[in-house]
């Protein structure tokens, strides 16, 4: 029964649906092997010019550099916390670069690579980790929503935004980012339902980095996550999340599918969290070092560099220039964070409401008077 109806869906719908057949081995869309070999996939043909490949390489390297800088800034006490994207650069850059300017991204707290692709100043991302704000950018400026810490909540916001696009008759699309752990949340499953029944132009982009803090993906699911989509009535595709070309091609296809009125798509980017969950976490308590070692061989940057070198698409000069640029980025981030001023405490009362609110105004005045009493030396 299941197999038959899946087969029917296969004919009608997306290429990725093929992978939802019950007996199928999890299929992994891959266009660039860990060894740097370019391979073809019948459903996701991709032509990339040399300059595009070089641009993707640049993105990956700079994003990783930014992330490393943030990690060390946390160690130096400049940030309170950092959630590293190490290992997930390709999933984020590939999907991020698949977006058009009018598309909209709803991130978790780890999508620094997507922010980069949306041209959000990396320094803006650091405010909340330093503790000077809870967001710190205008989401509508770059169509990149605020980071959401409450697991899964943003998938509903993304879906609602996508419902609005449909009402407007526009051809934009939305990407909702979330993790393997988040897939268990009610909100995420409700987002799937809404997006499905309203045929909303939203791509659910799950970075399965194998871990939700200390819990392996097996704590969340018994079937490969991409197969969840079939129960909600839309296509699910598993892509090699460390392959920037596959992530680009599959996300482009999914966004096109969504924006042309075919409804949502679930992409499971199969990847790995190379670092700790955050700088507060100690992964040696729950996972084996050889697992991390094994994933190192699948590094997203190395394989693209191998391709560029092998095909003679980039020379030493190019790699050196990217290296220099990443040094500059590191320096800019370092200096930018160190010179970030502590906010005035009256920020507590800012923007609590869009319109005046008597109690907030009263408490702000009280606070100012109280703080001034110290300066005047009246108090203690």
């Amino acid at each position, binding site marked *: 029964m299941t197999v038959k109806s899946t087969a029917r869906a296969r004919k009608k719908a997306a290429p990725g649906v093929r992978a939802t057949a019950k007996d199928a081995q999890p299929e992994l869309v891959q266009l660039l092997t860990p060894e740097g070999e370019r391979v073809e996939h019948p459903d996701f043909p991709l032509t990339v010019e040399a300059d595009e490949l070089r641009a993707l390489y640049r993105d990956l390297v700079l994003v990783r550099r930014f992330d490393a800088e943030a990690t060390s800034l946390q160690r130096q006490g400049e940030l*309170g*916390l950092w959630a590293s994207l190490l290992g997930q650069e390709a999933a984020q850059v590939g999907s991020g670069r698949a977006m058009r300017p009018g598309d909209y991204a709803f991130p978790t707290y780890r999508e620094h690579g997507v922010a980069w692709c949306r041209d959000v100043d990396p320094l803006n991302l650091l*405010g*909340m*980790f*330093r*503790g*000077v*704000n*809870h967001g710190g950018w205008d989401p509508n400026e770059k169509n990149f929503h605020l980071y959401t*810490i*409450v*697991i899964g909540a943003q998938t509903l916001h993304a879906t609602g935004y996508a419902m609005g696009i449909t009402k407007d008759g526009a051809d934009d699309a939305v990407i909702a980012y979330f993790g393997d*752990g*988040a897939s*268990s*949340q*009610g*909100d995420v499953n409700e987002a799937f339902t809404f997006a499905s029944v309203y045929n909303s132009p939203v791509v659910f982009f799950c970075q399965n980095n194998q871990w*939700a*803090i*200390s*819990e392996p993906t097996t*704590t*969340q699911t018994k079937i490969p996550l991409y197969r969840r989509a079939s129960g909600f009535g839309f296509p699910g595709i598993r892509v090699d999340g460390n392959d920037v070309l596959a992530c680009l091609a599959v996300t482009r296809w999914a966004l096109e599918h969504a924006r042309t009125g075919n409804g949502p798509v679930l992409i499971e980017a199969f990847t790995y969290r190379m670092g700790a969950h955050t700088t*507060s*976490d100690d992964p040696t*308590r*729950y996972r084996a070092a050889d697992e991390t070692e094994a994933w190192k061989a699948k590094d997203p940057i190395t394989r693209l560099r191998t391709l560029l070198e092998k095909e003679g698409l980039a020379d030493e000069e190019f790699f050196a220039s990217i290296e220099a640029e990443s040094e500059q980025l590191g320096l800019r981030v370092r200096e930018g964070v160190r010179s970030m001023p*502590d*906010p*005035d*405490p009256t*920020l*507590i*009362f800012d923007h*609590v409401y869009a319109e005046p609110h008597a*109690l*907030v105004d009263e*408490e702000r005045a009280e*606070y100012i008077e*109280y*703080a001034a009493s*110290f300066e005047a030396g009246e*108090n*203690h």
Partner: protein
Amino acid sequence: MAGQLSIAKALNGALRKSLESDPKTVLMGEDIGKLGGVFRITDGLQKDFGEDRVIDTPLAESGIVGTAIGLALRGYRPVVEIQFDGFVYPAFDQIVSQLAKMHARALGHVKMPVTVRIPYAGGIGAVEHHSESHEAYFAHTAGLRVVTPSNAHDAHWMLRQAIESDDPVIFLEPKRRYWDKGEVGESADLGLHDARIVRPGADATLIAYGPMVKVCLEAAAAAEEDGRRLEVVDLRSLTPVDFAALEESVKRTGRGIVVHEAPVFLGMGAELAARLTERCFYHLEAPILRVGGYYAPYPPSRVEESFLPDLDRVLDAVDRAFAY
């Protein structure tokens, strides 16, 4: 249990004892197994009691509390951990509409011995959703018992009492005090819902709970230098409230000041002030005052010191109470 224990270790010991003494006790939560919880409160328990009794759940708070209700219906005694205060809201329906009401709806035929442990309140320099004081939401809901210890002894014994209770208990753990050490006595010296006078005094009563008890003790020590003897009462239980103890103290001192991290507006202090005013009106030298957070979202960590009541804010209120 001689020697100094941190609150974290005292809680860990209480969970261990509860698992040992009642085979129906099960722990559930995110990352509570191998990791031992993000605060290590369940450290080592899965290793010793197995994955059947110390359960790493899927990442879904509504699921955690909802299934704990089902386990309770089947005769188990679930103790669930919510990872941080700000992540309990996905379980809000299960807590306030289901857990709190089940006993009454079943005309007393079923019991809900579920303990929901939540690290709460601020002061640890965390990002958003990791510093909230939401006790009033739960205390406002009849059917739930809400308690919060301030020291290692109470942490241990109150948790054991909470787990033994046949009612649902919201057990709020003051996370910024997890590493504070204290003596844990050989037995519970108070009932779960009794308040404790932690510092006697004659001139005014500071009423606090959880993380603010320490602040009030510091304020009382500082006030002594000004010749003011402040009594500090650790409320411990937010519902039911030990009004008899509070009334006795406030009638004696003539002044009462409630201190909590949660916003003052519609916080615990509002209820305490109203009831104490009714009970102690003719003994009061001043209105019951409140010191707390502002009517604003918990701010970014670099300014949280300005949001949280501290020694100066408490003493400022003491001054105002004496100025009446």
